[in-house]
Protein backbone atom coordinates (compact mmCIF):
# COMPACT_ATOMS: atom_id res chain seq x y z
CA UNK A 1 0.00 0.00 0.00
CA UNK A 2 1.67 3.05 -1.43
CA UNK A 3 5.16 2.95 -2.82
CA UNK A 4 7.48 5.93 -2.62
CA UNK A 5 10.79 6.22 -4.40
CA UNK A 6 13.40 8.89 -4.92
CA UNK A 7 14.66 9.09 -8.48
CA UNK A 8 17.45 11.33 -9.77
CA UNK A 9 16.71 13.22 -12.98
CA UNK A 10 19.92 13.22 -14.93
CA UNK A 11 18.86 13.95 -18.49
CA UNK A 12 20.59 16.99 -19.90
CA UNK A 13 17.77 19.52 -19.73
CA UNK A 14 15.72 18.29 -16.79
CA UNK A 15 11.96 17.91 -17.04
CA UNK A 16 11.17 20.39 -19.76
CA UNK A 17 8.02 20.12 -21.85
CA UNK A 18 8.72 16.98 -23.84
CA UNK A 19 10.00 14.68 -21.07
CA UNK A 20 7.34 16.04 -18.73
CA UNK A 21 4.69 15.18 -21.33
CA UNK A 22 6.12 11.68 -21.71
CA UNK A 23 6.18 11.20 -17.95
CA UNK A 24 2.57 12.37 -17.59
CA UNK A 25 1.34 10.27 -20.47
CA UNK A 26 3.02 7.21 -18.98
CA UNK A 27 1.58 7.87 -15.51
CA UNK A 28 -1.84 8.29 -17.09
CA UNK A 29 -1.71 4.71 -18.33
CA UNK A 30 -2.00 3.31 -14.82
CA UNK A 31 -4.90 3.08 -12.40
CA UNK A 32 -2.99 4.13 -9.29
CA UNK A 33 -2.87 7.60 -7.83
CA UNK A 34 0.55 9.00 -8.69
CA UNK A 35 2.07 12.16 -7.24
CA UNK A 36 5.50 13.74 -7.51
CA UNK A 37 7.56 16.16 -5.45
CA UNK A 38 10.81 17.84 -6.36
CA UNK A 39 13.11 17.17 -3.41
CA UNK A 40 15.59 19.65 -4.85
CA UNK A 41 13.02 22.41 -5.14
CA UNK A 42 9.91 23.46 -3.24
CA UNK A 43 9.31 20.24 -1.34
CA UNK A 44 5.87 21.32 -0.19
CA UNK A 45 4.57 21.28 -3.74
CA UNK A 46 2.98 17.97 -4.71
CA UNK A 47 2.16 17.48 -8.38
CA UNK A 48 -0.33 15.19 -10.06
CA UNK A 49 1.85 12.99 -12.25
CA UNK A 50 -0.89 12.66 -14.87
CA UNK A 51 -0.91 16.36 -15.58
CA UNK A 52 1.88 17.81 -17.72
CA UNK A 53 1.22 21.27 -16.34
CA UNK A 54 1.35 20.00 -12.77
CA UNK A 55 4.65 18.21 -13.39
CA UNK A 56 6.09 21.30 -15.08
CA UNK A 57 5.33 23.43 -12.03
CA UNK A 58 7.94 21.40 -10.14
CA UNK A 59 10.74 22.99 -12.15
CA UNK A 60 12.89 19.87 -12.25
CA UNK A 61 16.38 20.83 -13.42
CA UNK A 62 19.14 18.41 -14.42
CA UNK A 63 20.58 16.84 -11.29
CA UNK A 64 17.41 17.32 -9.26
CA UNK A 65 15.87 14.43 -7.39
CA UNK A 66 12.17 13.72 -7.59
CA UNK A 67 10.10 11.67 -5.21
CA UNK A 68 7.34 9.63 -6.80
CA UNK A 69 4.49 8.18 -4.73
CA UNK A 70 2.18 5.59 -6.19
CA UNK A 71 -0.87 4.13 -4.54
CA UNK A 72 -3.30 1.65 -6.04
CA UNK A 73 -3.78 -1.77 -7.50
CA UNK A 74 -1.04 -1.48 -10.08
CA UNK A 75 1.37 0.49 -7.91
CA UNK A 76 4.34 -1.88 -8.24
CA UNK A 77 4.21 -1.98 -12.01
CA UNK A 78 3.54 1.74 -12.23
CA UNK A 79 6.48 2.62 -10.02
CA UNK A 80 8.85 0.29 -11.86
CA UNK A 81 7.80 1.67 -15.22
CA UNK A 82 8.12 5.29 -14.16
CA UNK A 83 11.46 4.72 -12.48
CA UNK A 84 12.83 2.97 -15.56
CA UNK A 85 11.51 5.77 -17.73
CA UNK A 86 13.20 8.48 -15.68
CA UNK A 87 16.46 6.54 -15.28
CA UNK A 88 16.64 5.99 -19.04
CA UNK A 89 16.46 9.72 -19.62
CA UNK A 90 12.84 10.09 -20.73
CA UNK A 91 13.74 9.84 -24.38
CA UNK A 92 16.41 12.50 -24.22
CA UNK A 93 19.84 11.53 -25.44
CA UNK A 94 21.78 14.45 -26.74
CA UNK A 95 20.99 18.07 -26.05
CA UNK A 96 17.49 18.33 -27.45
CA UNK A 97 14.98 21.12 -27.50
CA UNK A 98 14.53 23.59 -24.79
CA UNK A 99 17.79 23.72 -22.92
CA UNK A 100 21.51 23.41 -23.00
CA UNK A 101 24.47 25.68 -22.99
CA UNK A 102 25.87 24.29 -26.19
CA UNK A 103 24.30 26.62 -28.67
CA UNK A 104 26.11 25.09 -31.58
CA UNK A 105 25.13 21.47 -31.11
CA UNK A 106 24.51 20.38 -34.70
CA UNK A 107 23.04 16.92 -34.32
CA UNK A 108 19.29 16.53 -33.98
CA UNK A 109 19.61 13.68 -31.50
CA UNK A 110 18.02 10.35 -31.80
CA UNK A 111 14.90 10.11 -29.78
CA UNK A 112 11.93 8.04 -30.55
Amino acid sequence: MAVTRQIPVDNPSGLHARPAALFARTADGFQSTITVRNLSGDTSRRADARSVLSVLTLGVEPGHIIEVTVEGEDEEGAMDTLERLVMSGLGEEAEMDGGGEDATDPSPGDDD
Partner: protein
Amino acid sequence: MPLTPARAMTTDTLSSMLPVEAIRLGLQAGSWRQAIKLAGDSLVETGSTTSEYTTEMITAVEEMGPYIVIAPGVALAHGRPSLAVVEPGLAWITLAEPVAFGHEDNDPVRLVIAMAVPDKTGHVRTLASLADLLSDPERRAELIGHSDPEELHRAISRFESDRAN
Protein backbone atom coordinates in the same frame (compact mmCIF):
# COMPACT_ATOMS: atom_id res chain seq x y z
CA MET B 1 11.07 50.74 -31.88
CA PRO B 2 11.55 51.22 -28.15
CA LEU B 3 12.02 48.07 -26.13
CA THR B 4 11.02 47.47 -22.56
CA PRO B 5 14.05 48.60 -20.56
CA ALA B 6 16.31 46.20 -18.67
CA ARG B 7 15.79 43.00 -20.65
CA ALA B 8 15.76 40.24 -18.15
CA MET B 9 18.10 37.56 -16.96
CA THR B 10 16.68 34.16 -17.61
CA THR B 11 15.67 33.46 -14.04
CA ASP B 12 13.61 36.60 -13.95
CA THR B 13 9.86 37.04 -13.83
CA LEU B 14 7.51 36.31 -16.71
CA SER B 15 6.34 39.90 -16.81
CA SER B 16 9.90 41.19 -17.14
CA MET B 17 10.62 38.76 -19.98
CA LEU B 18 7.37 39.55 -21.80
CA PRO B 19 7.27 43.11 -23.11
CA VAL B 20 3.79 44.54 -23.69
CA GLU B 21 4.75 44.88 -27.36
CA ALA B 22 5.16 41.11 -27.54
CA ILE B 23 1.56 40.55 -26.48
CA ARG B 24 -0.74 40.40 -29.51
CA LEU B 25 -4.33 39.39 -29.05
CA GLY B 26 -7.13 38.20 -31.31
CA LEU B 27 -4.99 37.50 -34.38
CA GLN B 28 -5.93 35.50 -37.45
CA ALA B 29 -4.08 32.27 -38.20
CA GLY B 30 -5.16 29.60 -40.63
CA SER B 31 -2.87 26.87 -39.35
CA TRP B 32 -0.59 25.94 -36.47
CA ARG B 33 2.42 26.94 -38.55
CA GLN B 34 0.96 30.39 -39.07
CA ALA B 35 0.17 30.63 -35.37
CA ILE B 36 3.76 29.82 -34.41
CA LYS B 37 5.01 32.26 -37.03
CA LEU B 38 2.94 35.03 -35.47
CA ALA B 39 4.48 34.28 -32.09
CA GLY B 40 7.93 34.12 -33.66
CA ASP B 41 7.42 37.46 -35.40
CA SER B 42 6.67 38.95 -31.99
CA LEU B 43 9.95 37.66 -30.60
CA VAL B 44 11.84 39.06 -33.58
CA GLU B 45 10.17 42.44 -33.44
CA THR B 46 10.89 42.86 -29.75
CA GLY B 47 14.55 41.95 -30.22
CA SER B 48 14.61 38.55 -28.55
CA THR B 49 15.39 36.36 -31.57
CA THR B 50 16.17 36.28 -35.27
CA SER B 51 13.64 34.83 -37.72
CA GLU B 52 15.67 31.63 -37.80
CA TYR B 53 14.27 30.87 -34.37
CA THR B 54 10.73 30.95 -35.76
CA THR B 55 11.75 28.25 -38.23
CA GLU B 56 13.25 26.25 -35.37
CA MET B 57 10.02 26.44 -33.37
CA ILE B 58 8.06 25.08 -36.32
CA THR B 59 10.64 22.39 -37.01
CA ALA B 60 10.43 21.21 -33.41
CA VAL B 61 6.74 20.42 -33.85
CA GLU B 62 7.30 18.84 -37.25
CA GLU B 63 9.98 16.55 -35.82
CA MET B 64 8.58 15.77 -32.40
CA GLY B 65 4.85 16.25 -32.75
CA PRO B 66 2.55 18.67 -30.91
CA TYR B 67 3.78 17.93 -27.38
CA ILE B 68 4.01 21.69 -26.89
CA VAL B 69 0.22 21.88 -26.42
CA ILE B 70 0.62 21.49 -22.70
CA ALA B 71 -2.85 22.57 -21.54
CA PRO B 72 -6.27 22.79 -23.19
CA GLY B 73 -6.01 25.54 -25.78
CA VAL B 74 -2.43 26.48 -24.95
CA ALA B 75 0.76 25.86 -26.90
CA LEU B 76 4.24 26.68 -25.61
CA ALA B 77 6.39 27.03 -28.71
CA HIS B 78 10.17 26.94 -28.44
CA GLY B 79 13.16 25.87 -30.49
CA ARG B 80 16.49 24.30 -29.66
CA PRO B 81 18.95 26.66 -28.03
CA SER B 82 20.89 28.38 -30.76
CA LEU B 83 22.51 31.56 -31.90
CA ALA B 84 19.09 32.59 -33.19
CA VAL B 85 18.27 33.69 -29.64
CA VAL B 86 19.66 37.17 -29.11
CA GLU B 87 18.36 37.58 -25.59
CA PRO B 88 15.85 35.66 -23.47
CA GLY B 89 12.25 36.61 -24.06
CA LEU B 90 8.64 35.57 -24.34
CA ALA B 91 5.79 36.35 -26.70
CA TRP B 92 2.06 35.86 -26.06
CA ILE B 93 -0.33 35.52 -28.99
CA THR B 94 -4.03 34.74 -28.89
CA LEU B 95 -6.04 33.77 -31.92
CA ALA B 96 -9.51 34.96 -32.87
CA GLU B 97 -10.26 31.43 -34.05
CA PRO B 98 -8.50 28.48 -32.44
CA VAL B 99 -6.38 26.20 -34.64
CA ALA B 100 -5.62 22.50 -34.48
CA PHE B 101 -2.11 21.40 -33.64
CA GLY B 102 -2.95 17.71 -33.72
CA HIS B 103 -2.73 17.14 -29.98
CA GLU B 104 -5.09 14.36 -28.96
CA ASP B 105 -6.26 15.99 -25.70
CA ASN B 106 -5.62 19.71 -25.73
CA ASP B 107 -6.63 20.91 -29.21
CA PRO B 108 -7.61 23.37 -30.53
CA VAL B 109 -5.20 26.11 -29.52
CA ARG B 110 -6.11 29.73 -28.83
CA LEU B 111 -3.03 30.87 -26.94
CA VAL B 112 0.50 30.46 -28.27
CA ILE B 113 3.30 31.45 -25.95
CA ALA B 114 6.73 31.52 -27.56
CA MET B 115 9.74 30.97 -25.32
CA ALA B 116 13.30 31.90 -26.16
CA VAL B 117 15.22 30.92 -23.04
CA PRO B 118 18.23 28.89 -24.07
CA ASP B 119 19.98 28.11 -20.79
CA LYS B 120 18.81 24.92 -19.11
CA THR B 121 18.01 26.34 -15.72
CA GLY B 122 16.25 29.42 -17.04
CA HIS B 123 14.24 27.35 -19.47
CA VAL B 124 12.92 24.95 -16.84
CA ARG B 125 12.23 27.75 -14.39
CA THR B 126 10.36 29.78 -16.97
CA LEU B 127 8.33 26.70 -17.86
CA ALA B 128 7.53 26.21 -14.17
CA SER B 129 6.36 29.83 -13.84
CA LEU B 130 4.21 29.56 -16.96
CA ALA B 131 2.77 26.24 -15.79
CA ASP B 132 1.95 27.80 -12.45
CA LEU B 133 0.26 30.75 -14.16
CA LEU B 134 -1.78 28.48 -16.43
CA SER B 135 -2.62 25.53 -14.22
CA ASP B 136 -5.87 26.83 -12.76
CA PRO B 137 -8.57 26.42 -15.45
CA GLU B 138 -10.50 29.53 -14.44
CA ARG B 139 -7.45 31.72 -14.40
CA ARG B 140 -6.32 30.23 -17.69
CA ALA B 141 -9.67 31.06 -19.32
CA GLU B 142 -9.56 34.55 -17.89
CA LEU B 143 -6.04 35.17 -19.18
CA ILE B 144 -6.87 33.85 -22.64
CA GLY B 145 -9.94 36.08 -22.73
CA HIS B 146 -8.03 39.36 -22.38
CA SER B 147 -8.34 41.80 -25.25
CA ASP B 148 -5.94 44.48 -24.02
CA PRO B 149 -2.18 43.76 -23.85
CA GLU B 150 -1.55 46.22 -21.03
CA GLU B 151 -4.26 44.65 -18.91
CA LEU B 152 -2.96 41.18 -19.59
CA HIS B 153 0.54 42.27 -18.63
CA ARG B 154 -0.82 43.74 -15.40
CA ALA B 155 -2.70 40.52 -14.67
CA ILE B 156 0.50 38.50 -15.07
CA SER B 157 2.48 40.91 -12.88
CA ARG B 158 -0.21 40.75 -10.21
CA PHE B 159 -0.18 36.98 -10.27
CA GLU B 160 3.58 36.95 -9.84
CA SER B 161 3.68 39.46 -7.03
CA ASP B 162 0.88 37.63 -5.21
CA ARG B 163 2.84 34.41 -5.59
CA ALA B 164 5.98 35.99 -4.21
CA ASN B 165 4.26 37.15 -1.04
